[in-house]
């Protein structure tokens, strides 16, 4: 990050440098003292690395002096690197050590900060340490920590190297051979060997072989057969050539196997690890991108705005824009056929245009060549293909160093040729242009004249303008005054109008009032009438009242008489009864008497009666006691009779007992005692006196008590009689008093009667008088009705009177108001006419002003024109045009010369020989801006030296490379663009995928730790992780595919279901643009997807090679044979019908999950079939990744009824994805649906193939092994 900034601009910084003795010692080896040493240059380009803090907590740094940029220093130190350890202090840098190390040690790393330092060594000088340098140092990461971080993280990648190292031997192996034989086309050689140790046989595979003593490598060991003691070698082209000429003569009969290639590859990969650790990545952020789960990526500063050179769809455009805008990293996911090569090509072109150098790397040579060959030929792009010539494909060969000049020559010739064709028209064009220019010039000059006239006009306008402005000013002033007046008038008018309205409403109101009421006269008349009526009613009322009073008095008089009569009767009775009182025996009689004659009870009587009542209550049990006494007497008598004298003794005993020795008894107890005794007597038939004794005792005791009770009751009775007598006496006394009072009442009653009689007489008199005064007839209403009538009349009178009052007041008011109204109306009219006048005046001024302003505007327009600028412009244009004309004239003059030169150049270039082009080649290589190579080759020393870094590194087919392989090109890129598809196959190791190899190693491995480490690798797919975790701005999926017919595409869309964008078909009319024109037995014109279902039975079963693990399927081979013959025939027919060109061949790929099957297909095609109309290519699915053909036949091989049978390689959805996505027009699957959809061991695999089968069925593409339609 900071590197980028610093490299862009390095400023010189001055700092104090203080030397410790130790550091000085180091300097003295090179110079007489430090002052001299640090003055050999004014300043030094240094690279500062931050160390861990010193023990004292001070910041420590190491300064690396650039051994190239510092010319004087480099000369002095013979290009070695000076290194100085320092402590950062405020007063300056304190050098603690100084030494010189090898020139091979890199000085520039991404953890160091490059700056131009001027060291001030004079001790007196107080420059100190500049603050900016100090803060720059503080921002630096501590290099050792970063290295440690990388070391730890990258160790998890060791496993990848282990896989490669698995069989790698360091030592060369030598064997002698007895026989040498060559295969049919000299591509392979078989040696019968001896002398290899047992363990060496297996290791020989993959090694490079050569004859001992020969410089030329034969090729790579393809196969080893230990049983036959043979080694098969894939030969290099040069060796093949030699063999054909019979010129390959081994000097000895010995062959040497070495794995130099593998080892050097591993070495390169390891160096990649080390470089990353040392901070040598061009992008300092790389280590984080690789190892952080969610890498922090610099967000793009802004989206680039681009013009595209290729036709791109929206996704491709997004990808290119994203890649160009990204700072560190951009990732593109490109499913099959989605045009990722086009995207890469476009990015390269954009980079070239921006002056950037791009590296296009890939795991395979094929992918590199593929990408390069699709780049547009454009002279801004200079492509260079780096790598071993023999491994580069035809498409890439023209870009290898030895061919680029030729490539350039061809491109340039083509350009010149085109230019030459235009020669004839050039002169006419030029003349025409010249003519146009001259015409234009004339026009411009005319314009200039006009402009000058205008300038004069403008000056006059300026004067006019001032006059008018003044005029307008005056008008404006006047207008202001008028407006003010108008405003006042308007205000006044408003007031008057308001007032007017007010008065008017008042008048109206008054008028309305008078209208609704009667006139004054009428009201007066009504008043009088009402007064009369009231008088009359009043009299009637008085009469009625008198009448009623009279009746009342009469009644009262009657009552009074009756009262007196009653009273008299009472008194008489009382007198009589008073004498009889003595005879009263009962209290109740007394009470009744007193009540009847209203004899007051009095306090004494009441108390005595209460006492009497009390005694009465006590006396209730008197009769009971009497009866019990009788009963007791009878009982005692009976017993005494029985006992005789003994009874006497008992009685005496009892009586002798002290007074309080007996208890009290209730009546019931006495009865009980008697009954008890009776019972005793009844039960005991014979009774002796002794037995009766207790009974008698009991009876005596009770009798004693009963007698006492009897005594008490007798006393009470006497008391009661006494009390009653007392009460009677008291009552008599009271009665006497009452009688005395009655005499007084007699006089009262008599008086009352007298009074009433007088009143009656008076009332009668008045009544008679009133009766006379009533003139009118009899009165119909009673007094209440009359009172109500009176009230009503009085109220009405009151109302009429008040109304009359109001009416009387209103009339003059109305009069006054009407006058006011008249006045206001006149005033209003006056003001309105004033207003109108003012308005007219203002209008006049306004129209005058408008006219003036219009004039002014016209003048302004004239004045606004910057004629002087126009003049300048015109003059400038004239100058330019004149120049252009001169140039055109020059060109015209030069044209024949130049055309001649171009012709000459064309000839020269055509004739150019190797030597001629040598300089061009050098220049081309120097300025190459798109360099293609494989990942591993990008770490070759030669390449590293020529191209240490790139502005942009594009890596294609990323998913196919292992992280250590990817690291190599990534280290070189300031910006990295990854292109891949994690839904296609992962890296291959030999014939197996990385995962399959890993699983095999894990199974073999004994060490748990190792297998755990390897398992981790299985989970990690760098591309997938990056693609999933990067922010949206840094990735793009290409979602439109152009390869497959839509029907074929449907087989792979499920694999991309979980992506953000669904896979779409970019072919507008699949049926038309992907028409295969074939009409045969197996294939009809409309078919694009077929599955030939092999029965799950013999002879369609898979078979396994005796000594290998690979499998084949003869049944499928037979079907494929028929299929190919049919396709060949169908192509021939299509040619005959003119649908396919005569010289064209239908391209057909026959692929399989199994290498052995591919071999058998190969043999079948080469040896047994003569297919004139087909262009055939075969291969394993894995090898076919990245390729496309018109027709693809997939031989699925696996088919068995064994319980343990499974589908092996075909389990991997990514392999299936690749297999299904190679065909443009027609995809034919050959295999057992039962095996794949039902017998496969893994559920996900069964599901996957079932879905595929469904897709095939939907398109009615299921056939039996003979091609008959199956349901």
């Amino acid at each position: 990050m900071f590197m980028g900034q610093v490299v862009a601009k390095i400023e010189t910084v001055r700092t104090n440098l203080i030397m410790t003795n130790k550091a000085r010692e180091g300097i003295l080896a090179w110079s007489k003292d430090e002052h001299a040493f640090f003055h050999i240059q004014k300043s030094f380009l240094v690279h500062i690395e931050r160390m861990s803090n010193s023990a004292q907590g001070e910041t420590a740094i190491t300064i690396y002096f650039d051994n190239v940029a510092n010319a004087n220093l480099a000369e002095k130190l013979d290009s070695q690197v000076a290194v100085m350890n320092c402590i950062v202090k405020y007063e300056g840098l304190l050098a603690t050590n100084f030494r010189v190390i090898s020139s091979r040690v890199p000085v520039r790393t991404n953890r160091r900060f490059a700056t131009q330092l001027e060291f001030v060594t004079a001790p007196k000088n107080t420059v100190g340490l500049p603050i900016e340098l100090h803060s720059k140092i503080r921002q630096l990461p501590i290099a050792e920590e970063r290295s440690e971080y990388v070391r730890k993280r990258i160790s998890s990648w060791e496993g990848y190297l282990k896989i490669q190292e698995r069989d790698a031997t360091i030592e060369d192996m030598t064997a002698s051979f007895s026989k040498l034989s060559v295969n049919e086309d000299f591509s392979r050689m078989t040696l019968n060997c001896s002398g290899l140790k047992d363990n060496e046989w297996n290791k020989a595979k993959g090694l490079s072989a050569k004859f001992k003593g020969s410089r030329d490598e034969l090729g790579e060991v393809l196969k080893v057969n230990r049983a036959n003691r043979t080694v098969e070698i894939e030969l290099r082209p040069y060796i093949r050539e030699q063999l054909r000429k019979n010129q390959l003569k081994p000097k000895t009969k010995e062959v040497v196997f070495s794995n130099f290639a593998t080892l050097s590859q591993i070495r390169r990969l390891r160096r990649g690890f080390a470089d990353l650790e040392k901070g040598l990545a061009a992008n300092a952020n790389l280590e984080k991108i690789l190892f952080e789960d969610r890498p922090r990526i610099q967000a793009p500063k802004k989206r680039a705005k681009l013009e595209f050179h290729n036709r791109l769809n929206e996704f491709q455009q997004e990808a290119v824009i994203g890649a160009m805008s990204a700072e560190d990293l951009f990732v593109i996911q490109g499913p099959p056929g989605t045009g990722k090569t086009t995207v890469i090509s476009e990015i390269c072109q954009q980079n070239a245009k921006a002056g950037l150098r791009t590296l296009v790397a890939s795991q395979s040579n094929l992918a590199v060549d593929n990408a390069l060959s699709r780049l547009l030929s454009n002279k801004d792009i200079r492509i260079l293909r780096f790598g071993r010539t023999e491994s580069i494909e035809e498409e890439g060969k023209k870009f290898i160093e030895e061919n680029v000049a030729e490539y350039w020559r061809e491109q340039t010739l083509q350009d010149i040729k085109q230019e030459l064709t235009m020669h004839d028209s050039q002169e006419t064009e030029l003349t025409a242009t010249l003519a146009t220019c001259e015409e234009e010039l004339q026009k411009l000059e005319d314009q200039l004249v006009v402009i000058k006239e205008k300038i004069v006009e403008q000056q006059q306008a300026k004067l006019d303008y001032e006059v008018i402005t003044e005029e307008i000013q005056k008008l404006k002033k006047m207008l202001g005054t008028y407006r003010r007046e108008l405003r006042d008038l308007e205000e006044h008018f408003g007031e008057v109008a308001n007032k007017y309205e007010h008065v008017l409403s008042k008048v109206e109101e008054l008028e309305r009032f008078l209208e609704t009421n009667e006139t004054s006269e009428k009201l007066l008349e009504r008043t009088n009438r009402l007064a009369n009526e009231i008088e009359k009613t009043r009299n009637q009322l008085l009469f009625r009242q008198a009448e009623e009073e009279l009746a009342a008095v009469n009644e009262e008089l009657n009552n009074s008489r009756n009262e007196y009569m009653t009273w008299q009767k009472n008194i008489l009775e009382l007198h009589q009864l008073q004498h009889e009182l003595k005879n009263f025996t009962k209290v109740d009689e007394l009470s009744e008497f007193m009540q009847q004659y209203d004899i007051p009870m009095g306090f004494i009587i009441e108390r005595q009666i209460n006492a009497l009542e009390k005694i009465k209550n006590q006396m209730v049990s008197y009769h009971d006691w009497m009866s019990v006494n009788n009963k007791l007497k009878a009982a005692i008598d009976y017993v005494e009779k029985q006992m005789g004298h003994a009874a006497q003794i008992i009685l005496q005993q009892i009586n002798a007992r002290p007074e309080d020795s007996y208890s009290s008894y209730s009546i019931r107890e006495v009865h009980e005692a008697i009954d008890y005794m009776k019972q005793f007597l009844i039960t005991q038939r014979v009774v002796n006196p002794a037995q009766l004794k207790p009974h008698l005792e009991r009876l005596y005791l009770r009798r004693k008590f009963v007698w006492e009770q009897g005594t008490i009751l007798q006393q009470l009775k006497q008391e009661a009689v006494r009390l009653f007598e007392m009460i009677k006496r008291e009552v008599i006394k009271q009665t006497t008093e009452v009688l005395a009072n009655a005499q007084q009442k007699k006089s009262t009653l008599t008086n009352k009667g007298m009074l009433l009689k007088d009143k009656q007489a008076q009332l009668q008199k008045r009544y008679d008088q009133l009766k006379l005064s009533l003139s009118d007839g009899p009165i119909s209403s009673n007094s209440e009705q009359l009172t109500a009538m009176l009230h009503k009349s009085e109220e009405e009178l009151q109302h009429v009177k008040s109304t009359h009052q109001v009416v009387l007041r209103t009339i003059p008011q109305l009069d006054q108001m009407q006058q006011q109204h008249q006045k206001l109306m006149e005033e209003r009219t006056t003001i309105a006419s004033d207003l109108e006048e003012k308005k007219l005046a203002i209008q006049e001024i306004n129209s005058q002003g408008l006219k003036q302003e219009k004039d002014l505007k016209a003048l302004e327009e004239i004045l606004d024109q910057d004629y002087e600028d126009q003049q300048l412009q015109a003059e400038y244009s004239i100058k330019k045009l004149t120049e252009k004309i001169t140039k055109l004239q020059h060109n015209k003059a030069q044209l024949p010369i130049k055309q001649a030169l171009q012709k000459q150049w064309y000839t020269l270039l055509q004739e150019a020989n190797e030597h001629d082009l040598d300089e061009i080649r050098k220049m081309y290589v120097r300025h190459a801006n798109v360099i293609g190579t494989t990942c591993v080759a990008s770490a070759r020393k030669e390449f590293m030296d020529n191209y240490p870094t790139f502005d942009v590194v594009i890596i294609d087919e990323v998913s196919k490379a292992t992280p250590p392989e990817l690291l190599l090109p990534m280290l070189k890129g300031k910006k990295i663009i990854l292109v891949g598809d994690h839904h296609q196959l992962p890296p291959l190791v030999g014939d197996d995928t990385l995962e399959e190899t890993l699983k095999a190693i894990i199974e073999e491995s004994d060490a748990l730790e190792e297998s755990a480490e390897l398992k981790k690798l299985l989970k990690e797919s760098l591309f997938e992780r990056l693609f999933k975790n990067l922010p949206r701005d840094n990735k793009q999926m290409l979602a439109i595919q152009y390869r497959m017919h839509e029907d074929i595409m449907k087989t792979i869309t499920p694999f991309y279901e979980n992506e953000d964008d669904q896979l779409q078909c970019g072919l507008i009319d699949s049926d038309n643009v992907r028409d295969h024109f074939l009409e045969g037995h197996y294939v009809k014109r409309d078919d694009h997807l077929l599955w030939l279902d092999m029965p799950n039975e013999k002879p369609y079963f898979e078979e396994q090679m005796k000594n290998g693990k690979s499998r084949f399927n003869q049944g499928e081979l037979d079907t494929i044979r028929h299929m190919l013959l049919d396709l060949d025939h169908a192509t021939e027919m299509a040619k005959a019908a003119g649908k396919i060109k005569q010289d064209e061949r239908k391209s057909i790929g026959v692929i399989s999950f199994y290498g052995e099957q591919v071999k058998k297909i190969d043999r079948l095609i080469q040896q047994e079939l003569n297919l004139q109309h087909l262009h055939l290519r075969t291969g394993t699915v894995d090898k076919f990744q990245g390729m496309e053909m018109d027709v693809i036949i997939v031989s699925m091989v696996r088919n068995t009824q064994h319980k343990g049978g499974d589908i092996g390689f075909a389990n991997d959805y990514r392999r299936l994805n690749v297999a299904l996505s190679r065909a443009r027009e027609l995809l034919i699957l050959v295999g057992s649906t039962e095996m794949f959809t039902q017998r496969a061991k893994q559920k996900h695999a069964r599901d996957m193939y079932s879905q595929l089968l469904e897709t095939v069925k939907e398109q009615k593409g299921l056939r039996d092994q003979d091609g008959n339609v199956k349901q």
Partner: protein
Amino acid sequence: MQALEKRLKREVLQNGKVEILKSSNWCVPVQSIDVTYQPVKRLKMDILMKMMLLTFQQAEISNASELGELLLVEDLFIQDLLINLTKTGLIERGEKYYHLTFKGKIQLENGVFEEEQEIETQQLLYSACHEAFLTAEIDQMDEYDELPDLFRYASEEPEETLKFVEEELIEVLQNSRTSEDEGEEQTVITDIISKEARQINDVPCLEFILYNREQDLLFVRVWNTLLSQWDDKLEKLLVEKEVVMWREELLKV
């Protein structure tokens, strides 16, 4: 011939798994053509530089992009060379245009100057079966007493030869010339004076149809006596045309 056949058979059968199903001899017709040309000798000078000098001499050029436009060459190349030419004092920038210095003029003259060499005639061999010129000396071919029949795919009629593009011939000629170090100078063929078809040579070839029983593999070896090597072109031709037939005819028994 027989000795050769014997040797070749032995060689073929070195691969123990292989048996010879059929062997035959026939001739491939090879047309010999005499091409006459006059090579020239001239100073080695990179053509772009030469062209730039020529341009500066004849035309009025004021900057690199103008020149780039004229020659249709990327500016970067032009700039490189401009710096180079200026540094070496061959050109200089005048008030408006570049022009050659005296040294430059001499250099250009030398570069353009071609010293005509002796007229040379060279024989080229063209095989219609191979659709190519063969690099070999017809004279050095062994003489055979009896020539076998013509190759079954060779046309009886002589080809309407000599329709070759001149550049192609020059390239063949140039490549066939042994390049000796000529120091500052080089000899180049710029055009052909004449070409003349000579005789048609019958080149005997020995054909062995082979069978690898273990692998059920049929293939063929053809020894070309002119080239003294197994001729892959003819082998391919035969396999393509006949392998299916061989299987039917030679393996049925």
